[in-house]
Structures are given as structure tokens and as C-alpha cells.
């Protein structure tokens, strides 16, 4: 980067707000998807909206791309730096600005940790509902960018359900306010579009959140099944009975073994484990829990336990939330997928994955949000063995194709980012993607904000979408468009 620009940026954030040395930059060269690594030109650590604006204005003037980053826990490479750009890391903007209990709203800066929102309103028995597994470290700004989910979004909805308003620094440095504390602000629902845009439309500097009153009672049931087929049938019966549990999670044998090895959650050794959480008024929960218990037994569950106390519940969840990290116990390397399928396609998709796994000689552990069909197949491999990584990657990609073919999605909560941008063309047609890019062009005509992510190809904003012309390399069979 030009020394003049470096000095200008340093003047904005102060000497300890700019990182340019190679060894320190290494901390920021990837997010939690560590197989992609790019060294940025520099990392900026602003402390205020004004500083973010000033940085973005410089970037805009100099045409320097920028990537916003929160805690860096993303699993799709969304915060992966751009080689020719800077990273704007929002972790120092971590103040909770307002707590409004009568209206159940919290206003927070983007660097606030997800769980800290709940921490601040817990005494009054409120909580912030979206609960990604990384909630003790991930930031609200990152949650907004990715539209993070979590186990309880089956009942409570996703980040987008709980974000009512945003203060945004647009990619030209302009400050705008979208939505607000009150609902249905005049105009387009641009807050709704911004949430989940993966940092490609600008940087959120303030977030208005909805908080939720704690339910009167929470009960978690753990049921052991011979296989995922029986467990899946139980899930269908629970939904068909008209219930909307707070969460329904499933783990297969391999992930149960890993979780046991890692956190000793005291799970039964079985082919599939179902975790069903119900919350609400006591009488309602008790009645429905009896129904769930019956449904599980009717579908072949040979052990059913109901965790009553907070301590028991915490232990049950500990194994589930630690499942990804626990894979380290049974495999040196793994790829996490995030495909979604219509819930009813579960048995068929599971057997397809099993078949592929056998053919490729690569093990797949399955952990999923069974209530909403969000699969997290963990493709296990050993990088040291020749060809295993390639086989694992190929298998992982095939799983996404299976999800699309079943009428689902390539990502339920981790985002597209760098990782799955090529798969976007499998899920969406060219006109679909072109139409999304129109939004991009309205927010960021120069494509400076997290460029190269989310879409398989950039689109020049001046150009009218025209007819697709086959590239000579494609015509010659040398290159293929995904």
C-alpha cells in the first residue's frame, strides 16, 4: 500500500489501530475456514462509526477493496481477506448502547459478542434468541453479515428475525439508517436485504435487536435410536402432531462417539441420537413432552431421558455444541458442510451420503438441525494421506449437489462466502444471480465491499445484463462454467 495512504489510515485509527507487519497480519489471514488463507495489505481496528466512515472513504477514493471482520468464526471464508485490500476488524466497537426492556430492544455495536447480549438482560429474564454454536465468541456484526442461525431458530427464527434496524456505512462512506426500533419503517426493507449479505453491501456499525422473554419452563429430551431412519421418522411424527419444539437436533453414531470422547456428555451409544427441546408454559410443555416421549418410543427409541434441571440440560447441549470441535478426536482433518434439505427427504439423502462415503472411502459424521432439515455432514479425512483431501472435497461438493437435487439449499447458516460461491450457479440460474447483483450494484457500484465473495462471478454495474455468450475456452472444452 502507498505510504501516503498508510499514514492517512494511521491518522484515522491511531498507531495501535493499524496492523501492517507480516507476522501480526497472519492472525487475520483466514476466518474459521482455515483452508483458505490470504494476507491482506493491512488490518484496521476502528473504535467508532466515524472512524469506519473515514476508513471507507479513503478506500473508496483509492479504490482499495475492504473486508469487514468480526470475531473471525465464520465457516465459509466470508472474512477471508482480499490480497489487494484491507481488513476492517470491528472487535473494538463492542459497546451495548441501549437496553430498552419495556419494548424488548437492545442497541449494540457490531463487535459485541452474541452471548453478551443475553448476559446483560438475563437478570430481567430476557434473552437474545439466535444461538450459533460459536455464540460465546462470535460477534453480532458477523451474525448480521451471515444471518446466523443456531439450534433454536426452528422456533425463534434467524438473526434476520431479530434485527429490526441497522446503521450502515455504505461502500462510499455514506452513513444510512435502515429499519428502526419501531416496525415497518417507510420504504423498502433494506435491513432485511442487508442481513445475510455477507459483508458485500457495506459495514454495519450499529444494530437494533429484539430480545425475547425467557419461557416459563424448558425441557430437553434425549432419545436413542437404532439408526437415523427411525430418528428421522420420529421427527416427522413430532411435526405432524402439530408441535413446534424450540429445537430438534440429531447426531449419528460417529458424531456421538466424537462428542463423548471430547466432553463426556454421557450420551448412550446408539445409531442416532435425537435431542428435542420444548419450552413454554409448564402445563403445555409437560403435556407435549409426554407426546414426544410416546412418539420416540413408537419409532423404536430404546432409551429416552428427559433433562429437567439446568445442569442436566447444559450437559446434554454441551455434547451437541462441541460436536464440530470434537471431530478432532476421531479424525485429523474434516470439512463441515451446511446443506439444507426438505425434512422429509432425510432418509433418502442420508442413504445417498452413506453410499457416497462408502464409494469414496471417506468417513462422514452427521450432526444436524433435524427440525429444519439443516445438515452438517462432517467429511473426515487425513491430509497426510495422499489423495484423501481431494476425495473429501469432492465428496463434500457432491453432498451439496444432493441437497440441491432434493429441493434444498447449499447453505442454511454458514453462508456462501468464498467456499460455496461456485455452487451458487448450481442452485440459481444466471438471471436469478444477475437480479441479486442489481442490489449489489445499488449499494456498492465499485464492488469494494468484500468483493469476490458470494457470487460465482462479479458483474460490472454499468453493464446491462445481456445474453450469455460462450467463452472461447468453454467452447473449446478447456474450461467449464460452474
Amino acid at each position: 500500500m502507498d505510504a501516503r495512504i498508510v499514514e492517512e489510515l494511521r491518522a484515522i485509527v491511531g498507531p495501535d489501530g493499524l496492523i501492517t507487519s507480516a507476522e501480526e497480519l497472519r492472525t487475520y489471514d483466514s476466518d474459521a475456514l482455515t483452508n483458505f488463507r490470504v494476507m491482506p495489505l493491512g488490518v484496521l481496528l476502528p473504535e467508532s462509526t466515524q472512524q469506519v466512515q473515514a476508513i471507507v472513504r479513503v478506500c473508496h477514493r483509492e479504490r482499495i477493496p475492504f473486508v469487514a471482520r468480526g470475531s473471525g468464526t465464520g465457516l465459509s471464508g466470508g472474512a477471508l481477506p482480499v490480497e489487494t485490500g484491507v481488513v476492517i476488524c470491528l472487535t473494538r466497537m463492542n459497546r451495548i448502547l441501549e437496553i430498552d426492556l419495556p419494548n424488548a430492544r437492545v442497541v449494540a455495536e457490531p463487535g459485541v459478542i452474541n452471548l453478551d447480549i443475553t448476559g446483560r438482560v438475563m437478570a430481567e429474564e430476557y434473552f437474545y434468541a439466535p444461538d450459533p454454536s460459536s455464540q460465546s465468541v462470535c460477534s453480532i456484526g458477523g451474525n448480521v453479515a451471515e444471518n446466523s442461525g443456531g439450534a433454536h431458530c426452528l422456533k425463534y427464527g434467524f438473526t434476520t428475525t431479530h434485527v429490526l434496524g441497522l446503521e450502515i456505512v455504505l461502500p462510499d462512506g455514506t452513513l444510512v439508517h435502515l429499519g428502526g426500533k419501531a416496525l415497518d419503517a417507510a420504504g423498502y426493507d433494506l435491513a432485511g436485504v442487508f442481513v445475510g449479505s455477507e459483508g458485500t453491501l457495506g459495514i454495519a456499525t450499529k444494530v437494533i435487536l429484539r430480545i425475547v422473554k425467557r419461557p416459563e419452563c424448558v425441557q430437553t429430551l434425549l432419545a436413542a435410536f437404532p439408526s437415523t431412519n427411525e430418528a428421522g421418522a420420529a421427527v416427522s411424527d413430532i411435526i405432524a402432531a402439530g408441535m413446534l419444539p424450540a429445537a430438534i437436533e440429531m447426531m449419528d453414531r460417529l458424531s456421538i462417539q466424537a462428542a463423548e470422547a471430547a466432553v463426556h456428555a454421557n450420551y448412550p451409544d446408539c445409531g442416532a441420537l435425537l435431542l428435542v427441546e420444548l419450552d413454554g408454559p409448564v402445563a403445555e410443555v409437560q403435556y407435549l413432552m409426554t407426546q414426544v416421549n410416546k412418539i420416540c418410543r413408537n419409532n423404536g427409541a430404546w432409551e429416552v431421558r428427559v433433562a429437567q434441571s439446568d445442569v442436566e440440560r447444559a450437559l446434554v447441549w454441551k455434547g451437541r455444541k462441541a460436536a464440530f470441535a470434537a471431530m478432532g478426536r476421531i479424525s485429523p482433518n474434516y470439512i463441515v458442510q451446511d446443506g439444507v434439505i426438505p425434512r422429509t427427504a432425510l432418509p433418502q439423502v442420508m442413504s445417498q451420503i452413506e453410499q457416497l462415503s462408502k464409494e469414496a472411502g471417506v468417513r462422514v459424521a452427521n450432526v444436524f438441525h433435524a427440525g429444519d432439515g439443516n445438515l452438517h455432514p462432517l467429511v473426515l479425512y487425513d491430509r497426510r494421506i495422499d489423495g484423501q483431501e481431494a476425495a473429501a472435497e469432492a465428496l463434500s461438493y457432491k453432498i451439496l449437489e444432493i441437497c440441491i437435487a432434493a429441493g434444498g439449499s447449499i447453505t442454511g447458516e454458514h453462508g456462501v462466502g468464498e467456499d460455496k460461491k461456485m455452487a451458487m450457479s448450481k442452485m440459481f440460474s444466471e438471471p436469478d444471480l444477475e437480479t441479486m447483483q442489481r442490489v449489489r450494484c445499488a449499494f456498492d457500484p465499485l464492488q469494494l465491499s468484500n468483493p469476490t465473495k458470494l457470487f460465482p462471478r462479479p458483474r460490472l454495474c454499468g453493464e446491462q445484463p445481456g445474453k450469455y455468450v460462450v467463452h472461447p475456452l468453454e467452447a473449446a472444452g478447456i474450461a467449464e462454467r460452474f
Partner: protein
Amino acid sequence: MDAGISSQSTHAIAVFENSARAIVGGQYVRAANAGDIVGGVQPQIVVEPGTEQELAQILKLANDGDLAVIPRGGGSKAAWGNPPQRAEVVLSTARLNAFVEYAWSDLTVTVEAGCTVKQLRETLAQVGQRLALDPLWPSRATVGGVLSSNDSGSLRLRFGSLRDLIIGVTLALPDGTLAKSGGKVVKNVAGYDLPKLATGALGTLGIITRATFRLHPMPQETCTVSCLMRDVGEAQRLLLAVQSSKLAHSALQIRFVTSMPPQMDVLFEATQAGLAAQVEQLKAILAPSAVIEPGPAVWNARQELHSAARDNASNSALAKISILPAQIAETYETLLAITANRVHFQAVVQATGVGCVYLEGAPTEFGHALQSLRAKLEAAGGSLMVAHRPTNMAALDAWGDPGDALPLMRAVKQQFDPKSTLNPGRFVGGI
């Protein structure tokens, strides 16, 4: 139209009409009549395409011919928004009313935009499911119209509004593009959330041709509990008390009529086992006031006010307001002060802070009253949308101030509809 239409546009319309007949068939193209007037502007021609592809072609045809298009579903909320700057073609989704896919065991449904809410409800009810939404005039309102106008009622408290229920959309754009976004599964973060962009856009970015929704089971049992409040202060206090309790109610509203005590209604949807305990808890919160169980009709209150405004077209106005739940009492006091006994008003406000205000009296009084109310609400972070106004009321923008995001909204409009073909001038800031 007083000055008639220029010969150039007459020619353009004639060209359009011929091509439109070729696309959809002559019987689905007709000259517009007085029943098609939108905001006092008389369109020229009405087209009813039978497929999404036909609709996209017709839209492109109009766009190419510089003809303004008014998208229309059931027409039940055609008066919403500002009067159009131009209106040549009414594009009706009436024939696009098919169920594309009803995956009932996955609790999702995909329907075409012209399907009425009633038709949707009846089909879903057959398997004990519902779209958890209570919009206005369900027998006329279509899926596309309800989405475009972002109309939701009291169930929003528990289930969210359309933005929380829609999971996929297909849009026809003025350049003829048919683009889908979102998907058929409830959980999906692939790509931009255009279903939310289309919701509440009043058809100014594209015409919704189909939508996919997440569904909910029908409740096993329901019970409505109502209670008369001593005054507005008590209504406000008890609303907040119920909201901060651990009750799992589905809806809560307060009904106000000038010079009457306000009335609060709470809806429970639960199992038989859970219902009784909740009703008892609510009674404890409301004590010593006596409660009654009036049945579900009280939930029609919002629609009754809208219908009253529609039926009493020349002497009434209706505004949708949005405030914070804790601002209900002060908003009521503001209304009292502004209307100062010259205008009779009624209001229904839900616990989400969204509600409506019905004014009745001399229309000359309304413009000022609504403007003052809007200024106060906007200063406090709220908003006021004029849904119905009598013809002799002073001109008043339907939407109010969209704030500092207006240039961005215009940029989005420019990308989707650069020639301002769709509903020109009807949305915020002249969009």
C-alpha cells in the same frame, strides 16, 4: 383524463394491445373502465396473463413501449400508496392462482401470486395447517397483493409478519427477467434475501409471480380473553405487564373509541392442557378488573376499521401507524389533542406497536390531524402510512419520511426498474 392522451401514447397503446393479444389471447385483454381507476388516474388497458412467462413478456412489452404498469391482485388495497404519476396498463395476476407445490409434511407451500388468501387458507386447513397471518379482506386479497402491501394483523406478535413467513419468491422485472430467490426450505442463507425486498415494495421493483411460505400447524384450542380498562394509562401499563410476563399468547390488541374506556384482547392458542393455566395467569395480571371471553370476533376489529373507511369513503380517513409498544398511551393522548373533539376516531393497536387509526368527520380536518400525528410519531422513531383518504382531503404523502436511506432506495429502484415503469410515483419519496 381531462386533456386526453397524446397521439403518441395512443399509438404506443395500440401497438402494445396488439402484441399483448398475441401473447395472452384476445379475451384476456380489455379496455380499462372506471372500476380500474387507481388513485384518481384512469388506466387504458387491462391484461390478465395466464402464466408467469406471459406476465413477464407483457411487462417487458409495456416497459419497451414506455407504458406505466399498475400490478393488481384482488384490488382490495388498490387505494394504498400515492396516486400514480402515470398509469396505462393494469397487469392483473387474477389468472395466476395455482398451487405450485404443497409440501405439507415439510410445512411449506408454493403458490402463484394471484391465489387468494381465502383459497390458500382453505387448502391448508384440510391438513390442519395455516399461514400464520391475518391480513385484511382474505376472500379478495391475493398472496401477491398482501406481500406487496406488507399487510399483517394481530398474529404478528407470535409468528412475525410476512418477512418472517416468506421463504422464496419469483419476480418478473420490467426487462422481462423472471428471477427466483430464496428457496423451498425454511432455513437458507444462499444469496441476497430478495423475498424481503419484494415484501412491502408495493410492486415498484418487480411483480411477484409466485411465493413460498413456511407454514404453522393450526392450534389445537384457542381462547380469547378481553378486559375493559379504566383508562389509557391502565391499558398501557397492563399491555406492558402482559408482554413482560411468561405467557405464550399469540396476539394482543387494544381497541380505542373516543370517549369510551379502552378494551384489551388477548388470544391464546395452545393445547387443552396448557390453556386453562395460562388464562388463570392472565386473570391474575389483570385483576381486579373482570374479564370476559368474547369469542374470536374481536380480532376483526382492525379489518372493521379499514372496511368502515372504505365504505364511508368521503367522510373518513385511515392510517396505519407504527410506534413502540410503550408509546401507545402517549400516542393516544397526542391523537386526542390533535383531533380535539372535532374528529371522531377509533384505533386498534397491537402489542407489536403496529395498528391503525380511523378518523371520521369533516375531511378538511384530517390533513392537518394526520400530518401533526405523523410528525410526532416520526420524531419518536415511528411512522404513519395513509391507507385511505377522502377525495377532498388536503394532499398528504401516503408514506412519510423514509429517512437518510432514500437515496439508496432510489438506487435500488433504478437497478430494478430504470424507466420507472412499475407503479410510478406511488411509493416513498416519489419512487
